[in-house]
């Protein structure tokens, strides 16, 4: 059975998602040694080719999705630290098409802003499970109240992270992704039923709802966790320094002091860097240390 990693990336007017995907793919290849494919549009691909001509070799396949429905574009507030943000176009809803887009039988899907710096995810390939996703990731800051990531709303079901998930192609998982597509297409209805306040359609919400439905409208059955933990740094935080390919320093928010930060260092831990501006600012250094 073929095995590989899938990354989605669609640039907008300011964020070079394809660049983040390229960096993320370099880290994945180094640490998991598996082929990586990219789902993108032709504009993002051409921009990436110009900037990183070797991206042709980094990616196993580049799959274009130019005929994507415009209804999948949303507006999202992109933070760059606690005090600065911009409203930009966001196209991130093709995730529910992972099943039909992946060229692999066994696929690990990751966000383009996830840096895999250890090899602990390698155990998914030999696992007996056909679907893995985590309910809990860990904040880089011990002071952060993560209640927004425990349930999809105060009155609703458990939150699962679509940042990274693994699936094997089979009938059961096909049903899961078909259900996700149905939820995306009828999101206003599901948003109302599941009492989600946030107007932004997130893959995390779609996956959480789909899992809840497939588990017989129950939170009792826990999804199988990925074999590695993921630490997240919010978009209201900043990537301050890249020591080496495994050690990063972040500025994390100080509790109750907006715009004040404390430093936090991660070492050998997979990190989800939600501040795309910070990721981009450190792109050269992230590539320099992985060479």
């Amino acid at each position, binding site marked *: 059975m073929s095995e590989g990693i899938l990354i989605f990336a669609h640039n907008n007017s300011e964020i070079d998602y394809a660049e983040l995907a390229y960096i993320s793919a370099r880290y994945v290849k180094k640490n998991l040694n598996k082929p990586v494919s990219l789902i993108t549009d032709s504009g993002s691909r051409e921009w990436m080719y110009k900037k990183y001509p070797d991206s042709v070799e980094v990616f196993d396949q580049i799959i274009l999705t130019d005929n994507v429905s415009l209804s999948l574009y949303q507006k999202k507030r992109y933070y760059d630290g606690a005090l600065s943000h911009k409203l930009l176009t966001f196209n991130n809803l093709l995730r529910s098409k992972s099943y039909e887009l992946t060229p692999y039988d066994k696929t690990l899907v990751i966000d383009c802003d996830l840096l895999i710096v250890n090899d602990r995810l390698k*155990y998914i390939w*030999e*696992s*007996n499970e056909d679907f893995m996703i985590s309910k809990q990731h860990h904040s880089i800051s011990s002071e952060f109240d993560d209640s927004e990531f425990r349930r999809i709303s105060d009155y609703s079901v458990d939150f699962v992270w679509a940042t990274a998930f693994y699936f094997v192609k089979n009938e059961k998982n096909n049903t899961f992704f078909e259900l996700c597509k149905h939820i995306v297409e009828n999101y206003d209805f599901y948003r109302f039923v599941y009492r989600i306040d946030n107007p932004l359609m997130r893959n995390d919400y779609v996956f959480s709802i789909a899992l809840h439905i497939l588990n017989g409208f129950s939170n009792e059955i826990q999804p199988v966790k990925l074999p590695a933990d993921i630490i997240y740094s919010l978009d209201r935080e900043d990537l301050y320094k890249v020591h080496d390919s495994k050690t990063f*320093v972040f500025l994390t928010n100080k509790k109750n002091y907006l715009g004040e930060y404390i*430093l*936090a260092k*991660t070492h050998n831990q997979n990190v989800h860097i939600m501040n795309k501006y910070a990721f981009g600012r450190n792109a050269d250094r992230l590539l320099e240390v992985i060479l």
Partner: protein
Amino acid sequence: MDERLEKAISVANLMVTFNNQRKLLKQEYKEQLLFHVNGYRFTINLNLINFIAFLTSRSISETVLIDDNENPCLISDLNSFLDEIMDQYFQANNDYYSKYLELKNKRSVTKLTLES
């Protein structure tokens, strides 16, 4: 600002940073305790080690264990399973210990985070 208060705030910043680093270190340690065998996953702890050591002391070489995902898993060679989980356990503990000592000896935010 009163000098004493200024000093207290700087110590508070150091303590927040130290506690955060300790939390991240503990998470890394917990990850190191995950043991994978035949597609199943076990968290190594003293209960697991003691139970397997007890079975091997009774010359039992094969058993079914329930993994972290509550799936049953046949372990056909308990002696080598015990060796492997003990190796990994001590390696994780020693690593945690040395990194913790290193952390404890750093007396400034700069040393805790900015020095590699």
